[in-house]
């Protein structure tokens, strides 16, 4: 047996081009369905595991998929905004604990998630280094963000402008890294968490500046009366919240009208959850309440339907490839007729000849298997990122 493998190996390594082509064909055609299945399993795991532990999400009426993707996976598509009044509404119903989320801004390619400390308890997130966010302007980094950006508690991070050309729009805010979360192996590892009020400061709804009633520079004052001082646009708004200026930070207007993207509602029990869902059924309702599990289930059904089509296509391609490979082997055999006749003449049995040919096939398939395995291993290592890239961001 070893002799057959030896001779087969010599033949294969001599015919590099043919072997490489065959290995590539076999490896690819084996890799494709496995990689597809792996990615689908990973996407199902990622998407469903997160959806399964998030009971209800409330947001503006519209695409429930966009709402869920933005709320659970911090996807790029920002749903229509709702206000904090939606949070107060849930609180007043006394059926669930509401957790507001404002996922709109980003920093260095990572999403900024404005929320409250309730979110961390809900998701079971633990601070591994530093502390929990406490002051306006604090941020807490997901484990992977800290790793990628090489940041630790005490460092700072600047939010990204929403629109490169909107110079009068959202100002970058320099945030202080208060802590880094322990790895959770979820989307939370890739996010930068801030208090919801900090998110509003990023938006410009809250700001800090000098006391307008004590300004010495006249060019900073537009108009002054006994009851009101109007400042000019020259008045500098702080782009960083420090212990010296934090007391100047304030919010104009009613906080109840301030924007958020969604509310995660955690019902106190199943009955409360059912009642809560019922409260949003009216036709005049401008908000929708969704069960993330159902939405993701629908998405996965669609993905699996597409996968079935892809499977069919791959099967046809695999069949064609298999036929081509058989043809290559058959032609190769034909070309080696003389060699076969010679070794037969020398005293080689037909069985040994078959063994020699099978050994070649075996080694080719083995090498293909190794390459396929290596590719699958690589896909497995990066499955998380690939799924995020394909389905979430």
């Amino acid at each position: 047996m070893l002799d057959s493998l030896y001779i087969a190996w010599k033949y294969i390594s001599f015919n590099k081009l043919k072997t490489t082509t065959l290995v590539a064909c076999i490896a690819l055609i084996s890799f494709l369905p496995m990689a597809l299945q792996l990615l689908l399993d990973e996407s199902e795991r990622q998407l469903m595991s997160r959806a399964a532990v998030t009971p209800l999400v409330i947001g503006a009426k519209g695409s429930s998929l966009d709402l869920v993707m933005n709320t659970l996976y911090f996807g790029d598509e920002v749903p229509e905004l709702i206000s904090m009044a939606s949070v107060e509404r849930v609180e007043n119903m006394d059926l669930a604990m509401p957790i507001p989320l404002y996922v709109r801004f980003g920093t260095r390619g990572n999403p900024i998630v404005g929320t409250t400390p309730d979110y961390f308890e809900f998701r079971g997130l633990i601070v591994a280094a530093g502390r929990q966010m406490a002051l306006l302007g604090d941020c807490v980094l997901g484990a992977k963000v800290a790793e990628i950006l090489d940041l630790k508690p005490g460092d700072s991070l600047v939010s990204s402008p929403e629109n490169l050309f909107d110079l009068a729009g959202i100002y970058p805010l320099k945030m202080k890294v208060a802590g880094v979360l322990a790895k959770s192996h979820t989307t939370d590892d890739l996010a930068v968490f801030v208090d919801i009020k900090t998110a509003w400061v990023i938006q410009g709804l809250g700001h800090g500046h000098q006391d307008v009633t004590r300004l010495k520079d006249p060019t900073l004052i537009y108009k002054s009366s006994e009851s009101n001082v109007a400042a000019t646009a020259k008045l500098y708004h702080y782009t960083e919240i420090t212990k010296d200026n934090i007391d100047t930070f304030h919010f104009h207007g009613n906080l109840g009208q301030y924007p958020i993207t969604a509310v995660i509602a955690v019902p106190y029990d199943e009955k409360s959850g059912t009642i809560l869902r019922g409260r949003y059924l009216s036709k005049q309702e401008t908000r929708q309440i969704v069960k993330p599990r159902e939405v993701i289930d629908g998405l996965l059904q669609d993905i699996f339907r597409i996968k079935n089509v892809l499977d069919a296509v791959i099967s046809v391609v695999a069949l064609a490839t298999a036929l081509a490979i058989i043809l290559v082997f058959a032609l190769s055999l034909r070309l080696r007729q003389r060699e076969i006749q010679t070794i037969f003449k020398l005293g080689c049995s037909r069985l040994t000849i078959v063994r020699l040919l099978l050994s070649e096939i075996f080694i080719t398939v083995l090498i293909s298997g190794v390459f396929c395995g290596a590719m699958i291993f690589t896909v497995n290592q990066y499955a998380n990122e690939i799924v995020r890239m394909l389905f979430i961001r």
Partner: protein
Amino acid sequence: MINIRQLEFHYQIGGFRLSIPEFSVERGERLAVIGPSGSGKTTLLNLIAGIIIPERGTIGVNNVKVGELNDAGRRDFRITHIGFVFQDFELLDYLSILDNILHPYRISGALTLNKKVHAHAAALAQEMGIGDKLTRRPNDLSQGEKQRAAICRALLPQPKLILADEATGNLDPDNKTLILDLLFRAVEDYNTTLLTVTHDHELLKRFDRVVDFKDFRL
């Protein structure tokens, strides 16, 4: 060494028939078989080697009735008792010269490949003047060197009989002489018998006996 009696053979396709009433070769003899193309010289070699079996008659090689052995028996007998040298050398391009020489040991269970055989192969190659070419591939060798490698392959199992089918057919005159010298030396050194099919009449005088094949065809 070879004893053929009342041999009759024909190919199903083509209608070629071969009839040999009597034919024998003595041990140690250097015999040349000549004849026109298609006269059945290669068929004779194949019958002696047991590659094909006659319809009638007996073929005895080294006192073994080859025609009466089964397939496996004939194969084993062939690889242990008979060395083949072909006109086109029939070396495998993808194996080194050493591997080509050792090839029979890798394709048959009747021969055992061990260190001793390796050493013998190297010595044989040295004797044939290709000792420094063992790691090369056939395409790197000249025609003469290739045939010498083929002869090494044939001689390595220490066969009792060497069947050479136009062994000098593709060689230049110098190499023809050289190859024939090597074959004749092998007959003496290894106490073997040589049966050569050839078209080369210039070389015939060097053989012990020459048989004209036209007498054997029906």
